[in-house]
């Protein structure tokens, strides 16, 4: 496996196919962790519209995935982030990590989703059933979640 795979796309993704791609034909993987972030119908939300910075976003994802690849002994790592208009119930983001060791897979998966939230150039706009629309504000709790992964100086 050459290294992490990152993709930014409008299309959905197939958890089973992506999981199979990391594990198929291999007998050195002890744990496969995954996280799928989904669009919630909070407060009458009709849709989320996700914008990104073409070029920089892919670079930022690749850098974060490479950072995880360096910190944990991973055998596979896939990050897929969707953009465009998504309705409640639809998947937004997929993080998949495989390793010989379960703790590495689980920790790398949590690290990636925490860092995605704070370090990858995506912006979410909420559209409501009544026609109103607003940009999602960044959350302090997301910064805190990402900060737990900071390496000691």
């Amino acid at each position: 496996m050459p290294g992490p795979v990152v993709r930014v796309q409008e299309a959905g993704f197939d958890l089973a196919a992506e999981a199979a791609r990391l594990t198929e034909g291999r007998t050195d993987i002890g744990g496969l962790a995954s996280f799928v972030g989904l669009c919630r119908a909070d407060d009458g939300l009709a849709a989320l519209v996700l914008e990104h910075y073409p070029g920089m976003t892919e670079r930022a994802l690749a850098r974060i995935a490479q950072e995880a690849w360096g910190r944990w002994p991973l055998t596979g790592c896939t990050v897929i982030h969707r953009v465009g208009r998504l309705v409640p119930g639809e998947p937004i983001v997929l993080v998949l990590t495989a390793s010989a060791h379960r703790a590495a897979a689980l920790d790398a998966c949590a690290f990636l989703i925490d860092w995605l939230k704070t370090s990858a150039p995506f912006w979410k706009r909420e559209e409501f059933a009544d026609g109103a629309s607003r940009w999602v504000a960044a959350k302090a709790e997301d910064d805190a979640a990402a900060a737990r992964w900071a390496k000691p100086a």
Partner: protein
Amino acid sequence: MRILYFAWVRQRVGVAEEAVSPPEAVRDVAGLVAWLAARSPGHASAFADPRQIRAAVNQDFATPDQAVAPGDEIAFFPPVTGG
């Protein structure tokens, strides 16, 4: 110098992208923000609260004191909300 805007920064400025040639006195991100803010009421509104603005120079996150030069691609946007 190519300037990109995203999310509500883009909406306030009114364009996604523009080419600008600031005077030589504009040497860093903070100086560029001050100069851009004077270009139109939309720009002024977009840059009204600098704490809400993030920047990237040539597709890397940048701090206000980061140098800018002709030929750079510089982007302004709100704090990111992906994931």
